[in-house]
């Protein structure tokens, strides 16, 4: 059996048992699992090739050509192979811009609106798995909008997918496992890394220590230590970095920072920032899945049961989009969500699916060991989550500063949605993706309320801009006609 690749949005079936959104480890594994359980499965992914960001370009890369990507990256080959051999359908470069849970003949059913190749179409599924992955937590510092400043994730994507290495003098700044992993990859690929600025608060070590024992058995322990030692041997590493500013006229030319009470400045050609990843939950948010604040990981994530079912019963969330756990946990999570959805669809297969679910749930428990240690150690400093430098831009699209947000917050604005109407933050092209975390944390800081109480932007569909002509081309449902005209006719 092989995967059926679809090249036209109009060639999708009208209905599937299961639709999966995203082709990273969770999505690929979910598709393979669901297809094996007999579900008519479609995987829709916005990227041109499977792999998500963690296994980006896994199909085209090979250890012979780009060995420096490391053995954890090559694990993606096995997931990819199973996906390419499974009996599912796959539509790449497809944006799912709206998802609505409804009912057909008294049974839950989900309507998805999909745009690909300049055309939109409606697809129905009985169950949906969101496997939308993670995005990098914004790291607002002065000058972060200058050309020459990007995220470390972006630099890694350029390396994985196009073999691109930043030219000239490079500085990496921030915290989290990716900081040292990418420093090592960059050095191996021949990049001119002049310094690593580690912003991990020193006090995190003491907080993380009680969680160390389970991490001692984690496969990440040795890898992490080895990377740390290796990078420190090759490049100056500044730890406990407290403030960062990037300078330049029309592009970045220098970075200034404080470490150990001293202010340092380094000439650069480019700087890459990173302070961990957060769930990419735009679609879950816009669909109406309840979100909750994860105080250890400092982010909002969909509220899920142990098998990934969201507050909307036909919608599951798997992988980092449902809470950060890393690639291996995401893969298993994809299998669990897919099997749980299959159990809803085919209750007669309980004896076949039940033991598989138990096996994967056990494996997930093993893989999750040590996560609390990593989360606690790499919890980003509050200075970079809720910045106090008034000139720093928080909302990049509408160019709203930290000062404007702090000012409004002090006047008892009730939350992010009211802030939007006052300052336009979160109303630009990115629809709030790049500032929502910062806005919530600044409001919480100024008003001394919990981020959970502050909340996050309420998103609406389409989750990304879609041309009006694509909207207009879709068949009108009786509900849509009634919403606009008040007319109950059966026109469709």
């Amino acid at each position: 059996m092989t995967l059926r690749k679809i090249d036209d949005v109009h060639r999708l079936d009208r209905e599937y048992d299961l639709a999966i959104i995203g082709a990273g480890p969770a999505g690929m594994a979910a598709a393979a699992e669901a297809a094996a359980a007999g579900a008519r499965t479609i995987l829709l992914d916005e990227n041109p090739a499977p792999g998500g960001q963690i296994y980006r370009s896994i199909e085209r890369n090979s250890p012979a050509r780009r060995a420096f990507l490391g053995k954890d990256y090559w694990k993606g080959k096995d997931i990819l192979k199973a996906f390419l051999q499974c009996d599912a359908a796959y539509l790449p470069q497809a944006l799912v811009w709206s998802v609505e849970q409804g009912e057909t003949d008294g049974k839950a059913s989900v309507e998805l609106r999909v745009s690909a190749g300049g055309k939109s179409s409606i697809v129905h599924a009985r169950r949906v798995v969101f496997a939308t992955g993670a995005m990098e937590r914004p790291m607002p510092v002065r000058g972060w909008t200058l050309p020459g400043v990007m995220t470390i994730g972006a630099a890694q994507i350029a390396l994985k997918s196009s073999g691109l290495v930043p030219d000239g003098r490079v500085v990496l700044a921030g915290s989290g496992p990716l900081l040292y992993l990418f420093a090592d990859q960059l050095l191996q690929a021949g990049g001119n890394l002049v310094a690593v600025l580690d912003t991990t608060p020193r006090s995190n070590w003491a907080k993380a220590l009680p969680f160390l024992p389970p991490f001692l058995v984690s496969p990440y322990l040795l890898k992490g230590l080895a990377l740390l030692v290796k990078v420190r041997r090759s490049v100056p590493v500044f730890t406990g970095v407290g403030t960062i500013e990037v300078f330049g006229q029309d592009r970045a030319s220098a970075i200034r920072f404080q470490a150990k009470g001293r202010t340092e400045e380094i000439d650069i050609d480019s700087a890459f920032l990173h302070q961990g990843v957060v769930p990419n939950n735009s679609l879950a948010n816009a669909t109406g899945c309840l979100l909750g604040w994860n105080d250890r990981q400092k982010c909002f994530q969909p509220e899920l049961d142990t098998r990934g079912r969201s507050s909307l019963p036909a919608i599951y969330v798997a992988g980092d989009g449902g809470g950060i756990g890393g690639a291996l946990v995401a893969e298993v999570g994809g299998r669990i969500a897919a099997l749980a959805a299959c159990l809803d669809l085919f209750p007669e297969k309980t004896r076949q699916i039940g033991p598989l679910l138990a096996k994967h749930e056990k494996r997930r428990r093993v893989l999750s060991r040590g996560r609390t240690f990593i989360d606690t150690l790499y919890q980003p400093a509050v200075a970079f989550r809720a910045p106090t430098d008034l000139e720093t831009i928080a909302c990049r699209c509408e160019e709203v500063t930290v000062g404007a947000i702090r000012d409004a917050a002090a006047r008892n604005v009730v939350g992010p949605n009211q802030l939007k109407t006052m300052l336009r933050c979160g109303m630009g092209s990115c629809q709030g993706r790049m500032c929502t975390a910062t806005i919530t944390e600044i409001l919480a800081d100024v008003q001394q309320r919990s981020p959970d109480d502050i909340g996050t932007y309420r998103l609406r569909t389409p989750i990304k801009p879609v041309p009006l002509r694509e909207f207009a081309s879709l068949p009108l449902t009786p509900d849509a006609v009634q919403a606009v005209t008040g007319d109950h006719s059966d026109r469709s």
Partner: protein
Amino acid sequence: MFRRIDKATDTVAITFDGIPMRVDTEQTVSAALLGQGISTLRKSVVGDRPRAPYCLMGVCFECLVTIDGIQNRQACMTIVRDGMAISSQSGARALDEGC
């Protein structure tokens, strides 16, 4: 801003603001332009400041460009194609004639 560490097999011809260039196939418009030393793709909507691709994964919308006459395309989510005409943007998108 970036250089390639290995040779690609095939190339396509594209233009950026009218300047012709040959770039590797099977990559995004953002990656292709960064590989040509071009990072500033637009001027920001409010402050008219230079902006460059930032996240390369479809999240930040900093890489918005006009591709074959269609404005506000995400350069990091669009694969290069032979003959593609890309141009930088200044400020917000304008209303197209005839739309």
